[in-house]
């Protein structure tokens, strides 16, 4: 075994020993990979419940007695008068204050064919009120349309004249893309996981070592700074990768507890998806590690490193969200780190065929950028500025 390799091996082994004995850092690394799948499961369960069920809505009705048929339609849609609510739900719905006012002249106007104003008074900025408001509006609109149709039929007019055009919708989405919410969250969590899991280790092995006065000792040894950086990067990326494997495994199990068929969707992580995701995210783990080490090594203290590097986590969270708002994506976005992977992940979750060329290019670009960071850092560690900052 050559000296160069055995040195690198010793460096790597030491980094792993230290990282795996740092319980606090490991907990941070793996807590996310364990919590994320649970969160995905809970959130999708709630979402499905909202989509499938029609929970009771209580609204304050004024003049209910003037429009009994409309009231029946409301009741059929599980929208009930506030007076029927009991206990906690009465307080909740009273606070939400959805108020529907039916005019006294309802019956008379109906006979005369006048337009009747039904007042819907609510706080449209209150998020929990949005679904109830939508349902109230739907009931009123359907009721009104039914009356309108009857009037036309009575006059011998075919109601089809109201629908000169008909849309025939053909949804090309694969069944799995209906689970968009889950896959989007998972994609975001995976990218965040890649960036966050190695964070504590990266900071501890760079700024932490500087603060504990072991960096100077190491820099005085007959080894190249490149080896030092490579050893630390290997350890940081390995921890990120491990965390991602854990996250995917737990997610594939936990998604089994969500009954997606209720919303006509399927979602599962099969061996193929699993492998592609790992191949896709390995370069990201390396890139994240390189980026974190690059900044953490330049910080003067552990604290400074923490605040600088924590900002880097915004990157993976920000990029996929920005991509959603970008309708016409420029082509180069496919290639740059994080954005490229995010786009391929989206296709993968939608069940579209994978663009292997794009995957290769984005991986190569990501690795190349990581290599540049590593070389830059190795050079920086040789500089006098870094040495002077030691004491």
């Amino acid at each position, binding site marked *: *075994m050559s*000296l160069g390799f*055995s*040195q690198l*091996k*010793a*460096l790597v082994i*030491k980094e792993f*020993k*230290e990282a795996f*004995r*740092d319980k606090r850092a490991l907990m941070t690394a793996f807590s996310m990979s364990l919590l994320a799948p649970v969160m995905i499961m809970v959130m999708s369960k709630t979402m499905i419940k909202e989509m499938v069920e029609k929970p009771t809505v209580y609204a304050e009705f004024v003049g209910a007695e003037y429009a009994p048929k409309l009231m029946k339609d409301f009741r059929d849609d599980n929208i009930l008068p506030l007076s029927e609510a009991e206990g906690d739900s009465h307080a909740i719905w009273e606070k939400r204050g959805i108020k529907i006012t039916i005019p006294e002249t309802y019956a008379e106007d109906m006979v005369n064919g006048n337009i009747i104003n039904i007042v819907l008074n609510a706080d449209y900025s209150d998020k929990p009120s949005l679904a109830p408001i939508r349902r109230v509006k739907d009931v009123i609109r359907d009721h009104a349309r039914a009356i309108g149709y009857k009037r036309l039929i009575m006059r011998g007019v075919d109601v089809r004249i109201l629908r000169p055009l008909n849309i025939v919708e053909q949804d090309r989405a694969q069944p799995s893309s209906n689970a968009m919410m889950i896959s989007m969250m998972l994609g975001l969590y995976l990218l965040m996981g890649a960036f966050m899991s190695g964070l504590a280790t990266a900071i501890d092995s760079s700024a932490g*070592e500087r603060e*504990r*006065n*072991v960096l*100077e*000792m190491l*820099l*005085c*040894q*007959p*080894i*190249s700074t490149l080896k030092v950086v490579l050893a630390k990067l290997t350890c940081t990326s390995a921890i990120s990768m491990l965390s991602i494997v854990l996250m995917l495994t737990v997610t594939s199990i936990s998604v089994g507890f969500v009954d997606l068929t209720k919303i006509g969707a399927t979602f599962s992580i099969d061996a193929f998806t699993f492998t592609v995701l790992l191949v896709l995210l390995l370069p990201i783990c390396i890139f994240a590690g390189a980026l974190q080490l690059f900044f953490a090594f330049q910080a003067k203290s552990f604290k400074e490193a923490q605040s600088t590097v924590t900002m880097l986590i915004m990157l993976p969270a920000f990029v996929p969200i920005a991509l959603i708002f970008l309708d016409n994506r420029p082509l180069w976005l496919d290639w740059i780190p994080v954005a490229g992977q995010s786009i391929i992940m989206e296709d993968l979750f939608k069940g579209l065929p994978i663009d292997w060329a794009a995957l290769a290019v984005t991986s190569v670009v990501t690795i190349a950028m990581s290599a540049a960071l590593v070389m830059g850092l190795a050079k920086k560690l040789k500089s*006098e500025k870094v*040495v*002077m900052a*030691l*004491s």
Partner: protein
Amino acid sequence: MIKVENLHKTFGKDVKALNGLSFTANDGEITGILGPNGAGKTTCLRTLYGLLKADSGVATIDGISAVDNPIAARAQLGIFPDKFGLYERLTAYEQIDYFASIHGLSGSHKKQAIEEVLADLEMEDLAHRKTQGFSQGQRMKVTLAQALVHKPKNFVLDEPTRGLDVMSTRILRDYLARFKAQGHCILFSSHVMQEVAALCDRVVIVANGKLAAQGTPEELCQLAGESQLEEAFVKLIGSDEGVAA
């Protein structure tokens, strides 16, 4: 043998840390390097480690230039740095093993070297404990062991006795004396005059980035016309700037 010739080093525009410093530390001798704070000792030692590049002049370790070939020069050195920290999540043995591997030891040869240095420093009972919570003396032993496990020909210590109790200081002194007897070259920086007087064969006094005087402790006392090395030191550096700096 460590040789420093006409070293110049300026930081920024006008902070002259080294101003033509020259001295030689011979094999089989303990050379003490004395100087007030800010005299350029640490800068000089960091140049020897190849961490800093001198503006001009040469620093060689067994004939290898620390400026041109720092990695080869460091391989000839055992370093006890100014600030020594430990990897607190490793045991003492693992830490010594780590530095032995960096210096290219492996297999049974490495194991033997580690056992030897542990026995020499009487630290077998510490070996398999994590270094977190070690006392200053125990820390010194670990640092010393990791610096010497590869049996370097040349050994540089930057204020090694700082914060040590009498027992630990004696262990260190005994150990250095043994190394000297084996023909190693030892360069030793300190602020404790009695220690320098007792231990060093030759003393190099540095002030304002250059050599102020050199010789055996007795020679320096004679040169300054004083009986105590401390008085001689103050006289030789030419001022009491050490207090101010």
